[in-house]
């Protein structure tokens, strides 16, 4: 068997094997059961005392949302302040300038919502202070925010009737101290031993063997990369993210960074089952997610390893696959693995340039973000999936002529309205943004010539990708897009905000409403949700709502490009 294929199988397989115990562990710590990390409890108490917080107070779903949104507002103010003044703040040995207001707006939102869309390059557009105290800080806390919101929904689905759904700060802080921080630290420590920099000095000026003068950018990269990969953040230290040979120096770092992308999202899906004491439920969710993921992954690996047909026509040796935008140490197969895993989750880090993927691979990365629920972001991926479960339960209920109920709670008009609004919000944001941009471009191609790096269908895909990535809070890009302009900074900023908070508020509200309802014990007439049949049902609901809404747009972009290229 081809060793590159074996490599990616091992990466994915070992990640799943690690995710199973991690899922159990997550359920344990969020339930507050005894765990081996209880030695961290005094540190957590210190944090709660510093914040003046009673971490044992039960909160209603509304109180959860108020706490979540308030602390997010504080972070937004901090991020805007740092990014607009970074040029005159300390830890800026390269004398990089402050961001323009529209770029700071975009970047602050982008990191606040766990998207990490980057309209700047780390080497020249950020300082060590802003990378560590603003961007990396947000990478920790926004990931923890998503996880905390997810646990609130878990709580609401427990047996019985309740108003109180645990304490937001408790889940939030534990997500950092007991999950994100230790895992990021482990990854960062491997990285420094593989050659990733962790220093505070300016660029290193060197004269190369051939006599060229170059400056080599460095900085506190390893620490940031750890949490960037673990927290489905994706905002890289360097401009080209993990394609950069200092950000991702070896095949080993590539494997670990790649595993880190999906580790917590998979563990979170399994934790759902463990948390409720119904592991089969977690496996159903995992199964549906994995089926959807593989459907995108397999063709992408095949296409990237096969190479670009237009280059094959030149008669050169393409046995390594399509190499434009890829790194030799990583190879085509591992680049394809990363490309899909980073887009089905909301990570968005890259180890190869997505703009140069073959058209169907590019489409699969788009589809990963359009569904946004095959693993998905840490915590929020499950929230998206939860919305689809609600819709599937409702449709199944109608099909068999029964009152739709999920885990002993009736699904009624109010919950359904919220679920459908959230499910349709995603295509609405993406397609509206793309349509407006395409309209602007078509109306005046000379004025907006700087937008697109590629003509024709692919240019359209670049715009579609940018809004899809923003709405999925993914943050990767078809980076040929000239996106540091007020139009792109502001429009994607608005899309990112709406696409982050509404899909958190919606599911938490649904969960809160369900938790208050009368609990109906399981009987012979109950719709069993932990079965393969129901899994298939959810799968098709996701494809019908999420994927088909985008088919016309995909036909104009990657599909048209594919049929032109492979004639």
């Amino acid at each position, binding site marked *: 068997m081809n060793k*590159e294929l074996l*490599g990616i199988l091992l990466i994915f397989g070992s990640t799943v094997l690690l995710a199973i115990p991690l899922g159990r562990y997550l359920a344990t710590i969020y339930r507050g059961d005894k765990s081996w990390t209880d030695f961290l409890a005094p540190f957590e108490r210190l*944090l709660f005392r*510093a*914040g*003046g*917080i009673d971490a044992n107070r039960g909160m209603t779903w509304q109180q959860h949302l108020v706490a979540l949104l*308030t602390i997010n507002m504080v972070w937004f103010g901090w991020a805007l302040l740092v990014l607009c003044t970074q040029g005159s703040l300390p830890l800026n040995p390269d004398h990089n300038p402050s961001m323009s207001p529209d770029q700071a707006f975009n970047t602050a939102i982008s990191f606040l919502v766990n998207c990490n869309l980057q309209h700047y*390059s780390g080497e*020249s557009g950020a300082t060590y202070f802003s990378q560590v105290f603003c961007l990396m800080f947000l990478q920790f*806390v926004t990931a923890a925010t998503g996880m905390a919101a997810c646990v609130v929904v878990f709580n609401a689905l427990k047996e019985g009737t309740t108003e109180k759904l645990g304490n937001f700060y408790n889940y939030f802080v534990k997500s950092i*101290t007991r999950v994100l921080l230790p895992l990021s630290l482990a990854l960062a*420590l491997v990285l*420094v*031993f593989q*050659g990733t*920099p962790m*220093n505070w000095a300016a*660029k*290193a000026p*060197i*004269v190369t063997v051939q006599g*060229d003068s*170059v400056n080599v950018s*460095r900085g*506190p990269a*390893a*620490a940031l990369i750890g*949490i960037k990969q673990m927290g489905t953040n994706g905002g890289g230290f360097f*401009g*080209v993210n993990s394609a950069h*040979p*200092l950000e991702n*120096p070896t*095949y080993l770092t590539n494997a670990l960074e790649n595993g880190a992308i999906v580790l917590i999202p998979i563990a979170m899906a399994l934790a759902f089952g463990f948390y409720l004491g119904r592991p089969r439920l977690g496996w159903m969710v995992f199964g549906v997610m994995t089926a959807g993921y593989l459907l995108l992954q397999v063709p992408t690996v095949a296409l990237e390893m096969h*190479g670009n047909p237009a*280059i094959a026509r*030149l*008669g*050169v*040796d393409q*046995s*390594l696959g*399509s190499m*434009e*935008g*890829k*790194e*030799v*140490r990583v190879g085509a197969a591992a680049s394809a693995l990363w490309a899909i895993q980073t887009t089905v989750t909301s990570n968005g880090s890259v*180890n190869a*340039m997505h*703009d*140069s993927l073959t058209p169907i691979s590019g489409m699969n990365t788009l589809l990963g973000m359009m569904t946004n629920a095959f693993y998905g972001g840490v915590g929020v991926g499950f929230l998206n999936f939860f919305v689809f479960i609600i819709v599937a339960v409702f449709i199944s209920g109608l099909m068999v002529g029964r009152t739709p109920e999920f885990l002993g709670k009736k699904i009624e008009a109010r919950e359904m309205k919220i679920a459908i609004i959230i499910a349709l919000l995603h295509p609405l944001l993406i397609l509206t943004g793309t349509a407006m941009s395409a309209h602007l471009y078509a109306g005046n191609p000379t004025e907006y010539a700087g937008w697109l*790096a*590629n*003509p024709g269908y*692919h240019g359209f895909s670049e715009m579609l990708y940018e809004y899809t990535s923003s709405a999925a809070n993914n943050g990767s890009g078809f980076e040929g897009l000239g996106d540091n302009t007020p139009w792109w900074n502001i429009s994607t900023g608005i899309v990112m905000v709406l696409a982050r908070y509404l899909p958190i508020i919606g599911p938490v509200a649904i969960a809160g409403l369900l938790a208050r309802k009368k609990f109906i014990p399981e009987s012979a007439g109950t719709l069993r949700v932990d079965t393969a049949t129901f899994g298939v049902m959810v799968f098709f609901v996701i494809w019908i709502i999420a994927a088909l809404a985008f088919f016309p747009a995909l036909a104009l972009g990657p599909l048209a490009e594919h049929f*032109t*290229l492979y004639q």
Partner: protein
Amino acid sequence: MKSQLFSAIRLTLALMVLCCVLYPAIVWAVAQAAPGRGEGVQISCNGRVVGFANVGQKFDKPEYFNSRPSAADYHADASSGSNKGPGNPEYLAVVKARLDAFLLQNPGVKAADVPAELITASGSGLDPHLSPAGALVQVARVAAARKLDAARVQALVQQQIEPGTLGPDHINVLKLNLALDALTAN
């Protein structure tokens, strides 16, 4: 609400100490024991730093093994891929021109022997590696330019291959060229 806001600010500050001071401090401290002490692994030749082991640099002279095309022209403070789509006609013309130039500089080499990485730009623009085929196809030209025996140069390339356990085999172009300079000096 007001008390929530103050709690949020105070918790934020406390977490900043944990995530932005303690955590990077630990990584930094451990990095002091790592190769390159967290500064990046530098390579020196005759007492002069000539590059970073992991950062590709431009080699375009005929007497050196040439590195891959780069959208960043190997400026290590402005990493960048080309971001060209696979069917972009302008891009395909550039690739064709790179192939023609390569065949001209390497007489006797057929297109089928040229691996695609030699005519396509890497993701970072700083790819430090070539595949073994990418180096071997340049052996005849390098040997001729340096008036060395081609077999000796070929043996040098073979020595420099770093086998990928699960990924592609690769050769660090900087290390290969330094070894080549050493071979010529002898």
